[in-house]
């Protein structure tokens, strides 16, 4: 044992002494340059959002003072209703989707019953169906149910298709909860309802946080669906709302110059803020949610 450790240590020493220090600096430099280049769009957005037309004309790419914070209030006036719509839709949709996912995850993870696996795969298999074949008939369905042009178009989509992935994620987590916990609760006379909301849910808050972040990112970023399903400005979502904002700003401002400058970019920054806030408070879950959303084919 000690010999293996000694060898390992020697290997590490060799690794750190020779031939690695040189390349490491190069690697650091490459990574930093690549990251800086990929940050350019974000930098542009931030600096441009603080400029008035004059600054935009003459100092477009440097940070110029004073920062015009009024751009933000101008932009906010044009997009606050879209922000609230999206937040409201995301919250209600997530709640419904969470209830269905938790129940489904619990039933598939903890109960034994005939046809359990076929039923489970009937749900999971839906992950293989791409949006492309669903999109047009989905619109027709929502239209015939009178859901188009209401917030329900966004909410129902989330409630109905969210659990496909939610059940998949929660089932694998719920399966890992020790059976003894359920056993003792059952002896105390707990029914399924108690087992779900008093035992399963409190134990799986981290996974649910990941699911929540993932779900929020999905709603906040969705563009094509609100574009066709909501035409009424009153219920429009943020992604489409940004285009409406740009249009309204150009028609409302006295000079066309104002459009070029800050308010549009300030609107972009405002649209990013919820994601930034989420990242600051739930950083780990945010990254996990991103990775999971990538796995969601």
């Amino acid at each position, binding site marked *: 044992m000690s010999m293996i450790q000694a060898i390992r240590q020697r290997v590490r020493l060799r690794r750190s002494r020779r031939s690695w220090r040189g390349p490491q600096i190069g690697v650091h430099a490459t*990574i930093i340059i690549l990251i800086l280049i*990929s940050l350019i769009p974000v930098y542009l957005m931030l600096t441009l959002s603080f400029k008035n037309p004059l600054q935009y004309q003459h100092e477009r790419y440097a940070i110029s003072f004073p920062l015009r914070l009024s751009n933000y209030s101008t932009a906010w006036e044009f997009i606050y209703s879209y922000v609230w719509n999206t937040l409201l839709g995301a919250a209600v949709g997530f709640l419904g989707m969470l209830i269905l996912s938790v129940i489904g995850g619990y039933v598939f993870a903890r109960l034994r*019953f005939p046809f359990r696996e076929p039923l489970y795969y009937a749900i999971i298999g839906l992950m293989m*169906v791409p949006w492309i074949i669903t999109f047009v*008939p989905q619109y*027709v369905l929502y239209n015939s149910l009178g859901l188009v042009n209401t917030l329900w178009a966004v909410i129902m989509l989330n409630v109905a298709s969210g659990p496909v992935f939610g059940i998949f994620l929660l089932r694998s987590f719920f399966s890992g909860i020790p059976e003894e916990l359920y056993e003792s609760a059952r002896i105390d006379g707990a029914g*399924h309802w108690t087992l779900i909301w008093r035992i399963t849910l409190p134990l799986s808050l981290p996974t649910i946080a990941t699911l929540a972040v993932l779900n929020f990112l999905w709603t906040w970023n969705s*563009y094509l669906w609100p574009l066709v399903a909501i035409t009424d400005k009153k219920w429009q979502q943020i992604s489409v709302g940004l285009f409406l904002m740009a249009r309204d700003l150009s028609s409302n401002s006295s000079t066309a110059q104002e459009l070029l400058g800050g308010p549009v970019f300030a609107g972009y920054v405002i649209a990013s803020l919820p994601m930034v806030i989420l990242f600051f408070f739930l950083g780990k879950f945010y990254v996990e949610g991103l990775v999971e959303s990538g796995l969601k084919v």
Partner: protein
Amino acid sequence: MVDRTRTKEERKLRVNILWAQVRRSWQAYALLAPIFIIMIIFVYYPPLLGLVRAFYNWAPGKDPVFVGLANFKAYFVYSESGREITNAAKLLCFNLISGVAVPFLMAELIFSIRSTSTKETYRLAMVIPMLVPGVVYLLLWRHIYDPNLGPINAFLDAFGLKYLKRDWLGDPAIALYAIMGVGFPWVSGISTLICLGGLAQMPESVFDACLMDGCTGLQRVVTIDLPLALSQVRLLIILAVINGITSIQNILILTRGGPGYATSVPALRMFLRAFTTNEYGVGSAIGVLLFISSMGLTLLISRFLRPYAE
């Protein structure tokens, strides 16, 4: 004869037992019922309707009429379909570079950093561009490409390279490549994080063994890392293929398929046929074709790229 009756009885008994089990677990079915009712209406029904209605001529407020394969034919007879399919193929191939190869190399670079805290810092820095909503990110790139106000042309101006200035998204010869350029240098993104996750799973001992055998650098990447992270890489390849075939958000926002048909793809045609000219039948038919091709490619990839441990 005797045997058959016995199996018949056995079967009967088995059905009875199953039935008893089903009845005993009525609670499970009761809990699942609302989920399935909602899903049948909102999640199962639309794709099935799409499959069926691809063979119908239908539009809102019109009775669907069965037309056989006419919708499929309509797409191939349409003069730009060849160009659209070529565009989609080009985008798909490029996705393999920007969505798989580059992120994998970036993950290797970050992975080779020894200091854990620096590694973590880089990982976080890569999340920053993802704190911007997808639509905003595309709008920012549209601004970057803007011929009059965008930084690319301003940069070329400043360095005396005026002859390189272009209307990046408005020139039919380069608009498609401009769309590919979005996100340059393509390192920050979920793909890199997924690759990093795959590399981090590899046991330390493999690297020690590698080093002892004098297998380092590119050789190690190809012979050790790539096979061991194959399940992640395969996932990225599948995602790149599906995105190449079905994603239209970038094209819709940047060029709307233009100028002319220079950046149009079948998926965009589906969207426009359905929602601007109300040809739902043709739209559904294109949707079915794209579904079949993306599904087929996905199955092919997962058939031929098999990770060791599966």
